[in-house]
Protein backbone atom coordinates (compact mmCIF):
# COMPACT_ATOMS: atom_id res chain seq x y z
CA UNK A 1 0.00 0.00 0.00
CA UNK A 2 2.83 2.40 0.88
CA UNK A 3 4.55 1.72 -2.46
CA UNK A 4 1.30 2.27 -4.32
CA UNK A 5 0.76 5.59 -2.50
CA UNK A 6 4.27 6.78 -3.32
CA UNK A 7 3.78 5.83 -6.95
CA UNK A 8 0.42 7.60 -7.16
CA UNK A 9 1.86 10.78 -5.67
CA UNK A 10 4.75 10.64 -8.14
CA UNK A 11 2.25 10.20 -10.98
CA UNK A 12 0.53 13.40 -9.92
CA UNK A 13 3.66 15.40 -9.23
CA UNK A 14 5.52 14.49 -12.43
CA UNK A 15 3.01 16.07 -14.77
CA UNK A 16 3.26 19.70 -15.72
CA UNK A 17 -0.52 19.90 -16.05
CA UNK A 18 -0.81 19.36 -12.26
CA UNK A 19 1.07 22.60 -11.64
CA UNK A 20 -0.74 24.46 -14.41
CA UNK A 21 -4.15 23.54 -12.97
CA UNK A 22 -3.05 24.29 -9.40
CA UNK A 23 -1.60 27.63 -10.52
CA UNK A 24 -4.77 28.50 -12.40
CA UNK A 25 -6.88 27.71 -9.33
CA UNK A 26 -4.61 29.83 -7.12
CA UNK A 27 -4.82 32.71 -9.59
CA UNK A 28 -8.59 32.39 -9.69
CA UNK A 29 -8.61 32.41 -5.88
CA UNK A 30 -6.64 35.66 -5.81
CA UNK A 31 -9.04 37.22 -8.28
CA UNK A 32 -12.06 36.07 -6.31
CA UNK A 33 -10.52 37.28 -3.04
CA UNK A 34 -9.94 40.76 -4.47
CA UNK A 35 -13.38 40.97 -6.06
CA UNK A 36 -15.15 39.84 -2.89
CA UNK A 37 -13.22 42.38 -0.78
CA UNK A 38 -13.50 45.30 -3.14
CA UNK A 39 -17.16 44.81 -3.93
CA UNK A 40 -18.22 43.81 -0.42
CA UNK A 41 -20.75 46.29 0.85
CA UNK A 42 -18.72 47.01 3.96
CA UNK A 43 -21.00 49.65 5.32
CA UNK A 44 -24.38 48.53 4.01
CA UNK A 45 -25.91 49.43 7.33
CA UNK A 46 -24.51 52.73 8.65
CA UNK A 47 -22.19 52.04 11.53
CA UNK A 48 -22.32 48.25 11.04
CA UNK A 49 -19.43 46.71 9.21
CA UNK A 50 -19.63 43.61 7.00
CA UNK A 51 -17.50 41.20 9.00
CA UNK A 52 -17.97 38.25 6.66
CA UNK A 53 -15.63 39.24 3.84
CA UNK A 54 -12.85 36.71 4.52
CA UNK A 55 -15.32 33.87 5.01
CA UNK A 56 -17.04 34.86 1.77
CA UNK A 57 -13.71 34.91 -0.07
CA UNK A 58 -13.02 31.30 0.90
CA UNK A 59 -16.58 30.13 0.24
CA UNK A 60 -16.69 31.85 -3.14
CA UNK A 61 -13.33 30.37 -4.10
CA UNK A 62 -14.45 26.88 -3.21
CA UNK A 63 -17.81 27.11 -4.93
CA UNK A 64 -16.23 28.58 -8.08
CA UNK A 65 -13.41 26.05 -8.40
CA UNK A 66 -15.10 22.95 -7.05
CA UNK A 67 -16.10 21.60 -10.48
CA UNK A 68 -12.45 21.76 -11.55
CA UNK A 69 -11.50 19.52 -8.63
CA UNK A 70 -14.16 16.99 -9.63
CA UNK A 71 -12.99 16.93 -13.25
CA UNK A 72 -9.30 16.64 -12.34
CA UNK A 73 -10.16 13.81 -9.93
CA UNK A 74 -11.98 12.07 -12.73
CA UNK A 75 -9.01 12.54 -15.06
CA UNK A 76 -6.70 10.91 -12.53
CA UNK A 77 -8.39 7.61 -13.32
CA UNK A 78 -9.48 8.24 -16.90
CA UNK A 79 -5.98 9.16 -18.05
CA UNK A 80 -4.79 5.76 -16.86
CA UNK A 81 -7.29 4.05 -19.13
CA UNK A 82 -6.70 6.47 -21.99
CA UNK A 83 -2.92 6.03 -21.99
CA UNK A 84 -2.95 2.31 -21.16
CA UNK A 85 -1.07 2.63 -17.89
CA UNK A 86 -3.86 0.95 -15.93
CA UNK A 87 -2.38 -2.43 -16.89
CA UNK A 88 0.83 -1.51 -15.04
CA UNK A 89 -1.05 -0.06 -12.07
CA UNK A 90 -3.15 -3.18 -11.63
CA UNK A 91 -0.41 -5.75 -12.19
CA UNK A 92 1.91 -3.92 -9.80
CA UNK A 93 -0.64 -4.33 -7.06
CA UNK A 94 -1.83 -7.55 -5.49
CA UNK A 95 -5.40 -6.32 -5.36
CA UNK A 96 -7.63 -3.92 -7.25
CA UNK A 97 -9.07 -2.84 -3.89
CA UNK A 98 -5.65 -1.43 -3.01
CA UNK A 99 -5.57 0.50 -6.28
CA UNK A 100 -9.06 1.85 -5.57
CA UNK A 101 -8.24 2.99 -2.04
CA UNK A 102 -4.89 4.46 -3.12
CA UNK A 103 -6.57 6.52 -5.83
CA UNK A 104 -9.06 7.89 -3.29
CA UNK A 105 -6.36 8.82 -0.77
CA UNK A 106 -4.02 10.50 -3.25
CA UNK A 107 -6.74 12.34 -5.16
CA UNK A 108 -8.27 13.61 -1.93
CA UNK A 109 -4.91 14.62 -0.46
CA UNK A 110 -3.79 16.49 -3.58
CA UNK A 111 -7.18 18.11 -4.12
CA UNK A 112 -7.50 19.25 -0.52
CA UNK A 113 -3.94 20.59 -0.50
CA UNK A 114 -4.54 22.67 -3.62
CA UNK A 115 -7.90 23.82 -2.25
CA UNK A 116 -6.27 24.88 1.03
CA UNK A 117 -3.52 26.79 -0.76
CA UNK A 118 -6.09 28.47 -3.01
CA UNK A 119 -8.15 29.43 0.05
CA UNK A 120 -5.09 30.96 1.70
CA UNK A 121 -4.43 32.95 -1.48
CA UNK A 122 -8.07 34.08 -1.49
CA UNK A 123 -7.85 35.24 2.14
CA UNK A 124 -4.59 37.11 1.51
CA UNK A 125 -6.04 38.77 -1.58
CA UNK A 126 -9.23 39.64 0.29
CA UNK A 127 -7.22 41.11 3.15
CA UNK A 128 -5.31 43.35 0.76
CA UNK A 129 -8.52 44.24 -1.09
CA UNK A 130 -10.24 45.00 2.19
CA UNK A 131 -7.43 47.28 3.33
CA UNK A 132 -7.43 49.00 -0.04
CA UNK A 133 -11.17 49.67 0.12
CA UNK A 134 -10.97 51.10 3.62
CA UNK A 135 -12.33 48.11 5.52
CA UNK A 136 -11.06 46.81 8.82
CA UNK A 137 -9.35 43.46 8.74
CA UNK A 138 -9.33 43.13 12.51
CA UNK A 139 -13.10 43.31 12.71
CA UNK A 140 -13.55 40.34 10.35
CA UNK A 141 -15.15 37.25 11.89
CA UNK A 142 -12.88 34.70 10.27
CA UNK A 143 -14.09 31.20 11.21
CA UNK A 144 -11.03 29.10 10.38
CA UNK A 145 -12.24 25.88 12.00
CA UNK A 146 -15.70 26.10 10.46
CA UNK A 147 -14.32 26.85 7.02
CA UNK A 148 -11.83 24.00 7.18
CA UNK A 149 -14.59 21.57 8.14
CA UNK A 150 -17.35 22.77 5.86
CA UNK A 151 -15.38 23.70 2.77
CA UNK A 152 -13.04 20.76 3.27
CA UNK A 153 -16.01 18.41 3.26
CA UNK A 154 -17.58 20.23 0.32
CA UNK A 155 -14.43 19.87 -1.79
CA UNK A 156 -13.94 16.27 -0.66
CA UNK A 157 -17.44 15.33 -1.76
CA UNK A 158 -16.91 16.79 -5.21
CA UNK A 159 -13.49 15.16 -5.58
CA UNK A 160 -14.98 11.79 -4.64
CA UNK A 161 -17.95 12.26 -6.95
CA UNK A 162 -15.61 13.13 -9.84
CA UNK A 163 -13.37 10.18 -9.09
CA UNK A 164 -16.21 7.67 -8.75
CA UNK A 165 -17.91 8.94 -11.90
CA UNK A 166 -14.59 8.42 -13.67
CA UNK A 167 -14.43 4.82 -12.44
CA UNK A 168 -18.03 4.18 -13.45
CA UNK A 169 -18.34 6.01 -16.76
CA UNK A 170 -14.78 5.90 -18.12
CA UNK A 171 -15.65 8.88 -20.28
CA UNK A 172 -14.53 12.40 -19.45
CA UNK A 173 -17.11 14.07 -21.69
CA UNK A 174 -20.01 12.42 -19.87
CA UNK A 175 -18.40 13.23 -16.51
CA UNK A 176 -18.05 16.92 -17.45
CA UNK A 177 -21.63 17.03 -18.68
CA UNK A 178 -22.87 15.51 -15.42
CA UNK A 179 -20.82 17.86 -13.25
CA UNK A 180 -21.96 20.99 -15.06
CA UNK A 181 -25.43 20.13 -16.31
CA UNK A 182 -26.93 18.15 -13.43
CA UNK A 183 -26.51 20.96 -10.83
CA UNK A 184 -28.17 23.38 -13.26
CA UNK A 185 -31.05 20.96 -13.81
CA UNK A 186 -31.35 20.52 -10.04
CA UNK A 187 -31.59 24.30 -9.62
CA UNK A 188 -34.36 24.44 -12.17
CA UNK A 189 -36.17 21.51 -10.59
CA UNK A 190 -36.37 23.43 -7.34
CA UNK A 191 -39.12 25.46 -9.00
CA UNK A 192 -41.22 22.30 -8.96
CA UNK A 193 -39.81 20.34 -6.04
CA UNK A 194 -39.47 23.38 -3.75
CA UNK A 195 -37.81 22.23 -0.49
CA UNK A 196 -37.49 18.67 -1.79
CA UNK A 197 -34.89 19.79 -4.32
CA UNK A 198 -32.30 20.04 -1.57
CA UNK A 199 -32.24 16.24 -1.41
CA UNK A 200 -31.07 15.98 -5.03
CA UNK A 201 -27.41 14.86 -5.35
CA UNK A 202 -25.49 18.06 -6.12
CA UNK A 203 -27.84 20.21 -4.03
CA UNK A 204 -27.20 17.95 -1.07
CA UNK A 205 -23.41 18.21 -1.64
CA UNK A 206 -23.78 21.99 -1.42
CA UNK A 207 -25.52 21.57 1.93
CA UNK A 208 -22.36 19.93 3.32
CA UNK A 209 -20.83 23.40 3.41
CA UNK A 210 -23.56 24.48 5.78
CA UNK A 211 -23.43 21.67 8.38
CA UNK A 212 -24.51 22.86 11.79
CA UNK A 213 -26.18 25.99 10.55
CA UNK A 214 -29.60 24.45 11.03
CA UNK A 215 -31.10 21.20 12.26
CA UNK A 216 -32.82 20.63 8.92
CA UNK A 217 -29.46 20.55 7.11
CA UNK A 218 -28.34 17.44 8.89
CA UNK A 219 -30.81 15.25 7.00
CA UNK A 220 -29.63 16.71 3.70
CA UNK A 221 -26.00 16.05 4.57
CA UNK A 222 -26.91 12.49 5.47
CA UNK A 223 -28.50 12.11 2.04
CA UNK A 224 -25.33 13.50 0.47
CA UNK A 225 -23.28 10.85 2.29
CA UNK A 226 -25.63 8.16 1.00
CA UNK A 227 -25.19 9.41 -2.57
CA UNK A 228 -21.39 9.32 -2.27
CA UNK A 229 -21.44 5.90 -0.65
CA UNK A 230 -23.69 4.56 -3.40
CA UNK A 231 -21.34 5.99 -6.05
CA UNK A 232 -18.36 4.50 -4.20
CA UNK A 233 -20.00 1.08 -4.09
CA UNK A 234 -20.89 1.22 -7.78
CA UNK A 235 -17.39 2.40 -8.71
CA UNK A 236 -15.71 -0.31 -6.64
CA UNK A 237 -17.87 -3.14 -7.97
CA UNK A 238 -17.30 -2.05 -11.57
CA UNK A 239 -13.57 -1.45 -11.10
CA UNK A 240 -13.01 -4.86 -9.57
CA UNK A 241 -15.13 -6.78 -12.05
CA UNK A 242 -14.71 -4.97 -15.34
CA UNK A 243 -11.89 -5.56 -17.82
CA UNK A 244 -9.07 -3.11 -17.17
Amino acid at each position, binding site marked *: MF*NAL*KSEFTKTL*TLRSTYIVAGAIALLAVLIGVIVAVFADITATPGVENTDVLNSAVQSTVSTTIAIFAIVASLSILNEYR*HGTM*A*YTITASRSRYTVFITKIIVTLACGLAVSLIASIFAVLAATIGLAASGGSVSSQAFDVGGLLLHEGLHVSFYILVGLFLGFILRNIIIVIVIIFVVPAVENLSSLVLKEGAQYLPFSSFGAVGRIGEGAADFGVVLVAFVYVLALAAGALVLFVNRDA
Partner: protein
Amino acid sequence: MITAQNLTKSYGTKVVVNNISFVVEDGKITGFLGPNGAGKSTTMRAMLGLDNALGSTLYDGVPLTQHESPSKVVGILLDAKSFHPKRSARNHLKVLAQASGIPLSRVDEVLTLVGLQEVANKKPGKFSLGMAQRLGIAAAILGQPKHLILDEPANGLDPEGIHWLRDFLHQYVSTGNSVLVSSHLLSEMQLMAHNLIVIGKGTMIANQSMESFIQSANTGAVFVRTTDLNALANHLTERKIVWVGERNGIKVTGVTSDQLSALLFELGMPVLELAAENVSLEDAFLKMTANAQEYRATPGGQA
Protein backbone atom coordinates in the same frame (compact mmCIF):
# COMPACT_ATOMS: atom_id res chain seq x y z
CA MET B 1 6.91 -21.79 -15.36
CA ILE B 2 3.63 -20.17 -16.34
CA THR B 3 0.65 -22.49 -16.43
CA ALA B 4 -2.51 -21.25 -18.10
CA GLN B 5 -5.48 -23.48 -17.47
CA ASN B 6 -8.80 -23.47 -19.32
CA LEU B 7 -8.76 -19.78 -20.17
CA THR B 8 -12.09 -18.72 -21.61
CA LYS B 9 -13.20 -15.21 -22.40
CA SER B 10 -16.49 -14.12 -23.95
CA TYR B 11 -17.94 -10.79 -24.99
CA GLY B 12 -21.66 -11.34 -24.88
CA THR B 13 -22.31 -14.45 -26.91
CA LYS B 14 -19.00 -14.27 -28.81
CA VAL B 15 -16.35 -16.55 -27.34
CA VAL B 16 -12.98 -14.95 -28.15
CA VAL B 17 -10.80 -17.33 -26.13
CA ASN B 18 -12.13 -20.83 -25.86
CA ASN B 19 -10.80 -23.12 -23.14
CA ILE B 20 -7.11 -22.62 -23.84
CA SER B 21 -4.49 -24.34 -21.69
CA PHE B 22 -0.74 -24.26 -22.11
CA VAL B 23 2.55 -24.07 -20.29
CA VAL B 24 5.31 -21.52 -20.81
CA GLU B 25 8.41 -23.46 -19.87
CA ASP B 26 11.32 -22.06 -17.90
CA GLY B 27 14.49 -21.52 -19.88
CA LYS B 28 12.58 -21.24 -23.15
CA ILE B 29 11.07 -18.57 -25.36
CA THR B 30 7.53 -19.51 -26.26
CA GLY B 31 6.17 -17.86 -29.36
CA PHE B 32 2.49 -17.01 -29.37
CA LEU B 33 1.04 -16.90 -32.86
CA GLY B 34 -2.33 -16.45 -34.42
CA PRO B 35 -4.02 -14.46 -37.15
CA ASN B 36 -5.47 -11.02 -36.41
CA GLY B 37 -8.39 -11.34 -34.02
CA ALA B 38 -7.34 -14.83 -32.92
CA GLY B 39 -7.41 -13.83 -29.25
CA LYS B 40 -3.68 -13.54 -28.46
CA SER B 41 -3.84 -10.19 -26.68
CA THR B 42 -7.01 -11.16 -24.86
CA THR B 43 -5.34 -14.36 -23.69
CA MET B 44 -2.34 -12.40 -22.41
CA ARG B 45 -4.59 -9.93 -20.61
CA ALA B 46 -6.56 -12.79 -19.09
CA MET B 47 -3.31 -14.38 -17.90
CA LEU B 48 -2.49 -11.15 -16.06
CA GLY B 49 -5.95 -10.72 -14.55
CA LEU B 50 -6.56 -7.56 -16.55
CA ASP B 51 -9.53 -9.07 -18.34
CA ASN B 52 -11.93 -11.08 -16.27
CA ALA B 53 -11.96 -14.52 -17.80
CA LEU B 54 -12.72 -18.05 -16.71
CA GLY B 55 -9.81 -20.34 -15.92
CA SER B 56 -6.62 -19.60 -14.08
CA THR B 57 -2.97 -18.77 -14.62
CA LEU B 58 -0.30 -19.85 -12.19
CA TYR B 59 3.16 -18.37 -12.02
CA ASP B 60 5.48 -20.98 -10.55
CA GLY B 61 2.40 -22.71 -9.19
CA VAL B 62 0.91 -19.63 -7.55
CA PRO B 63 -1.66 -17.09 -8.80
CA LEU B 64 -0.07 -13.74 -9.61
CA THR B 65 -2.00 -11.88 -6.91
CA GLN B 66 -0.60 -14.18 -4.25
CA HIS B 67 2.99 -13.28 -5.02
CA GLU B 68 4.52 -10.68 -2.70
CA SER B 69 5.38 -8.34 -5.57
CA PRO B 70 3.73 -9.28 -8.89
CA SER B 71 5.96 -6.95 -10.93
CA LYS B 72 8.99 -8.93 -9.79
CA VAL B 73 7.34 -12.13 -11.00
CA VAL B 74 6.12 -11.09 -14.42
CA GLY B 75 7.10 -8.19 -16.64
CA ILE B 76 4.62 -7.08 -19.25
CA LEU B 77 4.56 -5.26 -22.54
CA LEU B 78 1.04 -5.23 -23.90
CA ASP B 79 1.05 -1.97 -25.84
CA ALA B 80 4.11 0.00 -26.87
CA LYS B 81 2.34 3.29 -26.22
CA SER B 82 1.32 2.52 -22.62
CA PHE B 83 2.63 5.70 -21.02
CA HIS B 84 1.45 9.21 -20.33
CA PRO B 85 2.76 11.19 -23.32
CA LYS B 86 3.68 14.18 -21.15
CA ARG B 87 5.54 12.31 -18.40
CA SER B 88 9.23 11.83 -19.16
CA ALA B 89 10.55 8.35 -19.87
CA ARG B 90 12.56 8.41 -16.64
CA ASN B 91 9.58 9.52 -14.56
CA HIS B 92 7.36 6.92 -16.24
CA LEU B 93 9.75 4.20 -15.10
CA LYS B 94 10.14 5.86 -11.70
CA VAL B 95 6.37 5.60 -11.16
CA LEU B 96 6.46 1.91 -12.06
CA ALA B 97 9.50 1.27 -9.88
CA GLN B 98 7.94 2.92 -6.85
CA ALA B 99 4.71 0.98 -7.29
CA SER B 100 6.63 -2.26 -6.87
CA GLY B 101 9.29 -1.22 -4.39
CA ILE B 102 12.05 -1.47 -6.99
CA PRO B 103 15.16 0.64 -6.24
CA LEU B 104 15.17 3.81 -8.35
CA SER B 105 18.75 3.09 -9.44
CA ARG B 106 17.26 0.36 -11.59
CA VAL B 107 15.49 2.99 -13.72
CA ASP B 108 18.72 4.29 -15.22
CA GLU B 109 20.05 0.75 -15.58
CA VAL B 110 17.17 -0.33 -17.80
CA LEU B 111 17.18 2.95 -19.73
CA THR B 112 20.83 2.32 -20.57
CA LEU B 113 20.11 -1.32 -21.38
CA VAL B 114 17.45 -0.44 -23.98
CA GLY B 115 19.47 2.50 -25.32
CA LEU B 116 17.17 5.31 -24.22
CA GLN B 117 19.47 7.07 -21.76
CA GLU B 118 19.88 10.01 -24.16
CA VAL B 119 16.15 10.71 -24.18
CA ALA B 120 15.40 9.74 -20.58
CA ASN B 121 14.12 13.20 -19.72
CA LYS B 122 12.15 13.67 -22.90
CA LYS B 123 8.39 13.28 -23.06
CA PRO B 124 7.63 9.99 -24.82
CA GLY B 125 4.56 11.35 -26.63
CA LYS B 126 6.68 12.05 -29.68
CA PHE B 127 8.75 8.86 -29.52
CA SER B 128 8.78 6.73 -32.66
CA LEU B 129 7.13 3.31 -32.38
CA GLY B 130 10.56 1.73 -32.04
CA MET B 131 11.56 4.03 -29.18
CA ALA B 132 8.21 3.43 -27.52
CA GLN B 133 8.81 -0.32 -27.79
CA ARG B 134 12.19 0.10 -26.13
CA LEU B 135 10.56 2.04 -23.29
CA GLY B 136 7.95 -0.71 -23.00
CA ILE B 137 10.67 -3.34 -22.83
CA ALA B 138 12.47 -1.27 -20.19
CA ALA B 139 9.26 -1.21 -18.15
CA ALA B 140 8.83 -4.97 -18.54
CA ILE B 141 12.31 -5.83 -17.27
CA LEU B 142 12.38 -3.13 -14.57
CA GLY B 143 11.66 -5.55 -11.72
CA GLN B 144 13.98 -8.25 -13.10
CA PRO B 145 11.00 -10.60 -13.26
CA LYS B 146 11.31 -14.31 -13.79
CA HIS B 147 8.70 -14.25 -16.54
CA LEU B 148 8.06 -11.90 -19.43
CA ILE B 149 4.83 -11.54 -21.37
CA LEU B 150 5.44 -9.45 -24.47
CA ASP B 151 2.81 -8.60 -27.06
CA GLU B 152 4.41 -7.73 -30.39
CA PRO B 153 7.63 -6.32 -28.89
CA ALA B 154 9.44 -6.29 -32.24
CA ASN B 155 6.88 -4.06 -33.97
CA GLY B 156 8.51 -0.87 -35.13
CA LEU B 157 12.01 -1.86 -34.02
CA ASP B 158 14.81 -1.23 -36.50
CA PRO B 159 17.01 -4.18 -37.59
CA GLU B 160 19.52 -3.41 -34.85
CA GLY B 161 16.69 -3.28 -32.32
CA ILE B 162 15.27 -6.62 -33.47
CA HIS B 163 18.72 -8.19 -33.30
CA TRP B 164 19.19 -6.75 -29.82
CA LEU B 165 15.77 -8.02 -28.70
CA ARG B 166 16.49 -11.54 -29.98
CA ASP B 167 19.86 -11.68 -28.24
CA PHE B 168 18.43 -10.15 -25.09
CA LEU B 169 15.58 -12.66 -24.86
CA HIS B 170 17.89 -15.60 -25.53
CA GLN B 171 20.16 -14.39 -22.77
CA TYR B 172 17.15 -13.78 -20.53
CA VAL B 173 15.91 -17.36 -20.74
CA SER B 174 19.40 -18.81 -20.50
CA THR B 175 19.27 -18.18 -16.75
CA GLY B 176 16.08 -20.17 -16.33
CA ASN B 177 13.57 -17.39 -16.96
CA SER B 178 10.63 -17.80 -19.30
CA VAL B 179 9.27 -15.60 -22.06
CA LEU B 180 5.91 -15.64 -23.83
CA VAL B 181 6.11 -13.46 -26.90
CA SER B 182 3.66 -12.78 -29.68
CA SER B 183 4.66 -11.45 -33.08
CA HIS B 184 3.53 -11.34 -36.66
CA LEU B 185 7.16 -11.24 -37.82
CA LEU B 186 7.32 -14.97 -38.48
CA SER B 187 10.87 -15.08 -39.80
CA GLU B 188 11.97 -13.35 -36.60
CA MET B 189 9.89 -15.68 -34.48
CA GLN B 190 11.49 -18.67 -36.21
CA LEU B 191 14.90 -17.41 -35.08
CA MET B 192 13.72 -16.43 -31.62
CA ALA B 193 11.34 -18.99 -30.16
CA HIS B 194 11.94 -22.52 -28.91
CA ASN B 195 8.29 -23.48 -28.49
CA LEU B 196 5.13 -22.34 -30.21
CA ILE B 197 1.55 -21.84 -29.22
CA VAL B 198 -0.75 -21.16 -32.17
CA ILE B 199 -4.35 -20.12 -31.74
CA GLY B 200 -7.04 -19.28 -34.24
CA LYS B 201 -10.53 -17.95 -33.60
CA GLY B 202 -9.86 -18.35 -29.89
CA THR B 203 -9.04 -22.05 -29.99
CA MET B 204 -5.75 -23.88 -29.71
CA ILE B 205 -4.30 -25.00 -33.03
CA ALA B 206 -0.82 -26.08 -32.00
CA ASN B 207 1.25 -26.25 -28.86
CA GLN B 208 4.63 -27.80 -29.59
CA SER B 209 8.29 -27.15 -30.24
CA MET B 210 9.24 -24.86 -33.14
CA GLU B 211 10.97 -27.73 -34.92
CA SER B 212 8.05 -30.15 -34.71
CA PHE B 213 5.59 -27.42 -35.74
CA ILE B 214 7.54 -26.70 -38.90
CA GLN B 215 8.10 -30.38 -39.60
CA SER B 216 4.39 -31.08 -39.25
CA ALA B 217 3.84 -28.93 -42.34
CA ASN B 218 6.65 -30.51 -44.28
CA THR B 219 5.42 -32.80 -47.07
CA GLY B 220 8.90 -34.21 -47.57
CA ALA B 221 8.77 -33.29 -51.26
CA VAL B 222 11.92 -33.11 -53.37
CA PHE B 223 12.23 -30.83 -56.39
CA VAL B 224 14.24 -32.18 -59.29
CA ARG B 225 15.24 -30.79 -62.66
CA THR B 226 16.87 -32.84 -65.40
CA THR B 227 17.25 -32.78 -69.19
CA ASP B 228 14.32 -35.13 -70.03
CA LEU B 229 11.46 -34.49 -67.65
CA ASN B 230 9.00 -36.65 -69.62
CA ALA B 231 11.24 -39.70 -69.35
CA LEU B 232 11.73 -39.11 -65.64
CA ALA B 233 7.99 -38.71 -65.16
CA ASN B 234 7.35 -42.02 -66.92
CA HIS B 235 9.90 -43.82 -64.76
CA LEU B 236 8.39 -42.35 -61.60
CA THR B 237 4.89 -43.41 -62.66
CA GLU B 238 6.12 -46.95 -63.39
CA ARG B 239 7.60 -47.12 -59.89
CA LYS B 240 4.37 -45.71 -58.42
CA ILE B 241 6.14 -42.66 -57.03
CA VAL B 242 3.90 -39.62 -56.62
CA TRP B 243 5.01 -36.59 -58.59
CA VAL B 244 3.70 -33.31 -59.88
CA GLY B 245 5.08 -31.01 -62.53
CA GLU B 246 6.23 -27.73 -61.12
CA ARG B 247 7.87 -24.77 -62.87
CA ASN B 248 10.52 -26.33 -65.11
CA GLY B 249 10.97 -29.44 -63.02
CA ILE B 250 9.16 -32.14 -61.05
CA LYS B 251 8.16 -32.21 -57.39
CA VAL B 252 8.37 -35.73 -56.02
CA THR B 253 6.95 -36.96 -52.74
CA GLY B 254 7.53 -40.19 -50.85
CA VAL B 255 11.23 -40.45 -51.57
CA THR B 256 14.23 -38.74 -50.05
CA SER B 257 16.63 -36.61 -52.05
CA ASP B 258 19.24 -39.39 -51.65
CA GLN B 259 16.89 -41.98 -53.19
CA LEU B 260 15.93 -39.67 -56.04
CA SER B 261 19.51 -38.83 -56.79
CA ALA B 262 20.34 -42.59 -56.90
CA LEU B 263 17.44 -43.16 -59.31
CA LEU B 264 18.62 -40.42 -61.66
CA PHE B 265 22.10 -41.92 -61.62
CA GLU B 266 20.62 -45.35 -62.41
CA LEU B 267 18.66 -43.83 -65.33
CA GLY B 268 21.72 -41.99 -66.58
CA MET B 269 20.04 -38.62 -66.34
CA PRO B 270 22.05 -35.57 -65.39
CA VAL B 271 20.92 -33.75 -62.23
CA LEU B 272 20.48 -30.07 -63.04
CA GLU B 273 18.81 -29.27 -59.73
CA LEU B 274 17.84 -31.32 -56.68
CA ALA B 275 16.41 -29.76 -53.54
CA ALA B 276 14.48 -31.08 -50.58
CA GLU B 277 11.50 -28.90 -49.74
CA ASN B 278 12.41 -26.36 -47.08
CA VAL B 279 9.34 -25.38 -45.06
CA SER B 280 9.53 -22.11 -43.16
CA LEU B 281 7.53 -21.09 -40.11
CA GLU B 282 5.50 -18.86 -42.38
CA ASP B 283 4.60 -21.80 -44.64
CA ALA B 284 3.66 -23.91 -41.65
CA PHE B 285 1.71 -21.10 -40.01
CA LEU B 286 -0.30 -20.29 -43.12
CA LYS B 287 -1.07 -23.96 -43.65
CA MET B 288 -2.12 -24.52 -40.04
CA THR B 289 -4.25 -21.40 -39.78
CA ALA B 290 -5.82 -21.54 -43.23
CA ASN B 291 -9.24 -22.15 -41.73
CA ALA B 292 -8.76 -19.94 -38.72
CA GLN B 293 -8.49 -16.54 -40.35
CA GLU B 294 -10.91 -14.11 -38.74
CA TYR B 295 -10.19 -11.39 -41.28
CA ARG B 296 -9.13 -12.22 -44.80
CA ALA B 297 -7.91 -9.68 -47.37
CA THR B 298 -8.88 -9.70 -51.03
CA PRO B 299 -6.26 -11.52 -53.12
CA GLY B 300 -3.59 -9.19 -54.49
CA GLY B 301 -4.46 -6.77 -57.25
CA GLN B 302 -8.24 -6.97 -56.86
CA ALA B 303 -8.71 -3.52 -55.39
